[in-house]
């Protein structure tokens, strides 16, 4: 195959012989009324499937998506976006070990560290760029402290890029 249409004009293809159609008897190649009626019956059988669904609406599975937004259920393992759960005191369990940063294939995670009052290295900001995230789950698997999870939700459209750069921790330190 050439990468553009060939410079040399290809020979005109030979006309293909007429193929035996469906309404033609395959034995002798002549039109057959029996075959025609059989085909018509098959068309109506196909229509019958549609009518069966009309008679039994309980088998219809349509879901009204934007209207049922409040009742949507997400499976436990659903991979929406990375979230960092906080307990009732507003604390998280991240120790800024940067394993998730290393596991990320796209560089979507940056761990910025700082020092607390005891000059211990703690988490400053967990920068998460949703715009470059492929939701592959590798950071969650890498985390030894269960500090990050995959949350529900899939409606991520925004009007600009800024809302997609997130800082997941609510406060510095541990």
């Amino acid at each position, binding site marked *: *195959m050439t990468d*553009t249409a060939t410079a040399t*004009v290809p020979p*005109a*293809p030979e006309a293909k012989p007429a193929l035996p159609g469906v309404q033609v008897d395959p034995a002798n190649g002549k039109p057959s009324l029996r075959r025609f009626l059989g085909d018509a019956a098959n068309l109506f059988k*196909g229509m019958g499937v549609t009518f069966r669904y009309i008679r039994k609406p309980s088998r219809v599975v349509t879901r009204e998506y934007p209207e049922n937004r409040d009742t949507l259920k997400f*499976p436990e*393992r659903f*991979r929406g976006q990375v979230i960092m759960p906080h307990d009732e005191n507003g604390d998280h369990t991240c120790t800024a070990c940067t394993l998730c940063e290393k596991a990320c294939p796209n560089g979507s995670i940056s761990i910025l560290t700082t020092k607390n009052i005891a000059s211990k290295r703690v988490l400053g900001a967990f920068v998460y760029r949703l715009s470059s995230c492929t939701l592959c*789950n590798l950071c969650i698997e890498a985390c030894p402290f269960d500090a990050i999870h995959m949350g529900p939700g899939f409606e991520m459209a925004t009007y600009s890029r800024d809302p997609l750069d997130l800082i997941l921790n609510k406060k510095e330190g541990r």
Partner: protein
Amino acid sequence: MATEQGYALPPGFSLRETRADGSQEYFLNMGPQHPSTHGVLKLVVRLDGETVIEVVPHLGFIHRAIEKMGENETFVQYIHLTDRMDYLSSHINNLCVCLAIEKAMGIGVPERGEYIRVMVSELQRIQSHLLWWGAFGMDLGAVSAFLYGFKEREKITALFEELCGARLTMNFFRPGGSNADVPENFLARVKEILEELKFSLDEFEVLLTKNPIIRERTLGVGALSRERAINYGCSGPVGRASGIDFDVRKHDPYSVYDRFQFDVPLGKNGDCYDRYMVRMQEMRESIRILAQAMAGFPEGQYRSKEKASYKVPAGSYYANVETARGLYATYMVSDNSFKPYRIKSRSPNFSNLSAINEMSRGGKIADLVAILSTLDLIIPDIDR
């Protein structure tokens, strides 16, 4: 070069001279935004009236350099990129990379892990064929078929969502097994899906297989002989419809496929109808495999002990699998580091597409749509 109408043709393009009656050949661009090309594929079609003389596919609209990106990522990170090649066989693509890594590092897979792999792969094959069935109906003008196909596929996608949290880009298999065990109700759900699927497949036969319009548009259309199919490297349902008795699951078994009884459906003429029938029969064979896997589903671990790091010893490694579209292979070269030196994917769609000129030559444009549909192309897999 300017034509009589004054339109200039791009360099490299030429048309036969205008005939005495004033008729002329012409070029037509089909795609990249055509609904029946199933993605961003552009076909330059040389036409004489409505008869196709030559079809030249133009690729590269969705090229993302996945193989080059793979060189900058670790072996485990590379797995999730293969989701984005053939996105309807993402589990099976992931499996291929895992098999190559396992071969390189000598990682074993526990019994349960192997069974999970086989079951998930077969479910993936069924859902891919269901989507193809719906799209095929829609391409040939039966919009309701699309809804019937998607209705069945949705059940399997919902199961995958519970299994690994994603519906398309799974990233579920890891070297040594999978990244999670199956949910508790997995087997019951699969059983339920298969029961409903058997009923639906019978419905599908009534809706499309026996439909005279579909038969008329596919019987004898786009025939590809066995020899030509081998020359083009066609594999999967396209090759099997032409009579190539080759299925990686059967002839080079990976995972635990050698334990299951199943047949490889073959076609005779290699036309659109044969490709259709091969896929319909493959779904039933997948159901057979799943029933056997469910009967012997073992207890135990789903993954062998995870390694601290996946440093692949120097050398080159090859693994191949049968995706829903044919032979998918990964060839990786490692220089004893955490990242591959070079990684190459052999995608089935590229080879299958290359036969399109031969298939559609001499037919009509409407036949070209039927041929494109039964080739079941995934464009991101061609471009990568």
